[in-house]
């Protein structure tokens, strides 16, 4: 029986600490120890993207990361998108475009899309579709999601200009 390990990490810009067993995933640690329940468990094997978070600037499926691997890392979750009560442009665009129904896949889409727009402010539709192919949704259809990402990208570029 392996014992608990203390993990010091940064989550959404704030220092965070938790104790976990090596077998616990980062997803479990975020949800069950840090009470950040935005990231969801869908497949638990890397295929659905519901658990997507940012780790050191790249998106990863947190079900396929061990909690102990977060030692010293910088993690970004959907909870870190809004600034207080001000929603991130992607969140606003998802609402305006009705890009969600049940909402289970939404945190994954938001985190993945944010990472794309951070790296590439003006992605083509094709690029958005391939980038988001790691995230599965079942109720809304992907078109509204793509349109919401395009809208947010436009708005974010205008704010910068």
């Amino acid at each position, binding site marked *: *029986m*392996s014992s608990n*390990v203390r993990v010091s990490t940064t989550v959404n810009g704030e220092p965070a600490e938790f104790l976990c*067993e*090596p*077998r616990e*995933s980062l997803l479990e640690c975020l949800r069950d120890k840090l009470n950040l329940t935005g990231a969801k468990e869908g497949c*638990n*094997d*890397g*295929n659905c*993207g519901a658990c*997507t978070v940012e*780790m050191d600037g*790249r*998106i*990863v*499926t947190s*079900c*396929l*990361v*061990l909690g*102990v*691997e977060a*030692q010293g890392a910088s993690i970004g979750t959907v909870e870190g998108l809004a600034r207080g009560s001000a929603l991130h442009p992607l969140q606003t665009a998802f609402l305006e475009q009705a890009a969600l129904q049940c909402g289970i896949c939404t945190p994954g889409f938001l985190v*993945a899309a944010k*990472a*794309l727009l951070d790296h590439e402010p003006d992605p083509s539709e094709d690029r958005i579709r*391939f*980038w*988001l*192919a*790691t*995230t599965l949704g079942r109720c809304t259809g992907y078109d509204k999601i793509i349109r919401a990402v395009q809208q947010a990208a436009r708005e974010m570029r205008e704010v910068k200009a």
Partner: protein
Amino acid sequence: MHSFDYAAPDSVSAAVSLLAANPGARLLAGGTDLIVQMRAHRREPGLVVDAKRIPELSALTFDSGGGLTLGAAVACWRIYGDAQVRAVFPSLVEVASLIGGTAIQGRASIGGNLCNAAPSADATPLLIALGATCRVVGPAGERAIAAEDFCVAPGRNALADGELLVSIHIPAPRPGSGAHYLRFIPRNEMDIAVAGAGVSLTIADGVVTAARVALASVAPTPLLVPEAGQAIAGKPATEETFALAGEAAKAAAKPITDMRGTIEYRRHLCAVLTRRALTAAARQAQGVH
């Protein structure tokens, strides 16, 4: 998941000591195979050794001759994020961009793809085609293994107890050479190859001077097909020539029938993918885009 211990050594020698002292221990690169397998109870190592804090396994360096040394744990995104790799090894960039999707590429490594030894591994046939060699270190010292000899059975590689893959060396491309990997999947993304073909070739004055072809998903391990290269060496770099290599690949393939495809289908795919991959590699070799 079963209970296990975790260690994150910061040197190759410390990792080798840990592996040697804990039979059955597994190295953790991106975890996109290992964690899935542990969760499904297909592998239950008592110790998981994180590779990502070992500098040599995370390094990506070009040598003076233009060859690439790829640390075994370098994640796919770093490969396509590197301007020099993009310029010198476009085929490697393509493969790094098609393993899983963006979130998988944030973690998955080429070394892990190779070590996992899946018959369907997408990077391995390309490594074989590019003539890559694997630098392995273990309790008895260091050795080099050719990429085509690295996988020995489904899920089994050539590493002995206590050994780990440190890096993969890919020689500098020769003038007039090109390489390409093509796979067939029913979807556009996020799927396992029904068949795949990794190729490289060199062309001088319109004639193929050398070629290597390796296949995915049509044998217990990724498969080098020397006959395909031999079939076209010395012949004009044309579609008809590349079709000959395709026929040789088809003849060498030893696929099985499963839910992804039948034996006949996979053999047919080998011919088509080999011909098309060689055509694409030839365009690259001749500077046509």
